[in-house]
């Protein structure tokens, strides 16, 4: 963060443009659990993407591909809304594949 700005440099009412904002690493707030998705169960309904209060659901075009550890706060909303039980919360220290996704034949160690 490059220092705090004086009042003259702020937009009226504090309106923020994308260039004004730092990308806050909300993933650093995570307190012990993280989501793990089983892609063989996922129906790609994208409810997790819709409900995620941050930007932690990674998609390519319209396909769910995993989670972004930079933003995921471990809030469990995705696991709660997943209609097919494809997302479970696991301890932070669990070793997981990249983007925290697996097929059912893979297993988190």
């Amino acid at each position, binding site marked *: 963060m490059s220092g*705090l*700005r*004086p*009042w003259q440099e*702020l*937009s*009226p*009412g*504090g*309106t*923020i*443009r*994308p260039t004004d*904002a730092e990308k806050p690493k909300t993933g650093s707030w995570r307190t012990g659990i993280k989501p793990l998705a089983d892609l063989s169960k996922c129906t790609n309904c994208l409810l997790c993407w819709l409900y995620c209060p941050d930007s932690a659901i990674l998609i390519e075009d319209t396909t769910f591909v995993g989670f972004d550890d930079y933003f995921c706060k471990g809030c469990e909303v995705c696991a709660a809304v997943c209609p097919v039980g494809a997302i479970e919360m696991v301890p932070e220290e669990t070793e997981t594949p990249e983007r925290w996704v697996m097929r059912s034949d893979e297993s988190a160690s």
Partner: protein
Amino acid sequence: MPVKTQEGAQLLTGGDAVANAMAQIDPDVFPVYPITPQTPIIQTFAKLVANGKASTEIVNVESEHSAMSATIGSALAGARSMTATSSQGLALMAEVVYIAAGMRAPIVMAVGNRALSAPLNIHCDHSDSMMIRDSGVIQLFAESVQEAYDLMVMAPRIAEHPDVMLPVLVCQDGFTLTHSEEPLELTPDEVVKDFVGEYHVPLPLLDVENVTTKGIFALQDYYTELRYAMNAAMEKAVPVIEEVFGEYSKIVDRPFGILEEYEIEGAERVIFLMGSTAGTIKDVVDELRAKGEKVGLLRLVSYRPFPAEQIRKALAGATEVIVLDRSDAPGSVPSLHSEMAAALYGSSAKLRAHVFGLGGRELVPDEARAIFAGEAPTHIALRS
């Protein structure tokens, strides 16, 4: 139908007059909830919209809290937005009025000033406006139906000025102006349209090519700066108001000022107040002047921003300043009294102050004479 009086003049109530101004401005969105004595404003406006005079989207919301919330949303989205209220409505809206100012939404609101409950009362005083005095909104007070109309025409230009970007409230005395017919001249539609111009708000919320976040969270790091910016905007609003007043004054050939100086030249005793009661005071000033008494009137139009410097200058020759507040402040002194005391600090002029007109009680010429004579009680016409 408006009654023709003199050439070019019509007979309209204050409510009808500002509704006509709003229809000529033709705002995009008008979220509103009805309350006495604001009702004739929105009733007439709704009729004008229904008759095709304006193309405004009127949103009938469930409360004044919602009215102002919706007005903020549409103003920041990029649509010229107005609303109107009175008294308890303004009280319920108060929380959101602060947000409108803090988010720098250039909203215009018509206010029919009315006393606050309890006891329940529907008539005029200025206690509703006083309640939001520190919210950051500009408040302009009319003396007459004509002035209420003219202020409404000018208000968008002030609110939307890039140096200002604050809500503007056009205040008129409930019933005394909102429901009373006076002759006035309406400015031609095309002239109003040209004067007001196109609505422009920087960084509109619906600009999907340039996305923004509005209604931000600002803590110890930025809250002070963002609130301070409103002080700076209010300071800049004084010359902006004067500039807009000056420009419109040339078009309609009527004088406008943030202050009206009436028989101030050589006046020793000067009454200072806002609103329609100035008419009564002017009659008494004329009468006393005819008898050789050096009295005058200084009428405040721009309550916020409060033009302390201009007031001090206008009162430089006065030996006694008499402030009349149309609101009370139990446990302290009302707004105009304390702010005049601050403005006159260090001056040798004597300061007197009275509270008058609460809940619509009239101030009659005899009382104005007693006020000038120094024989009136602190609360005018109080039975004790």
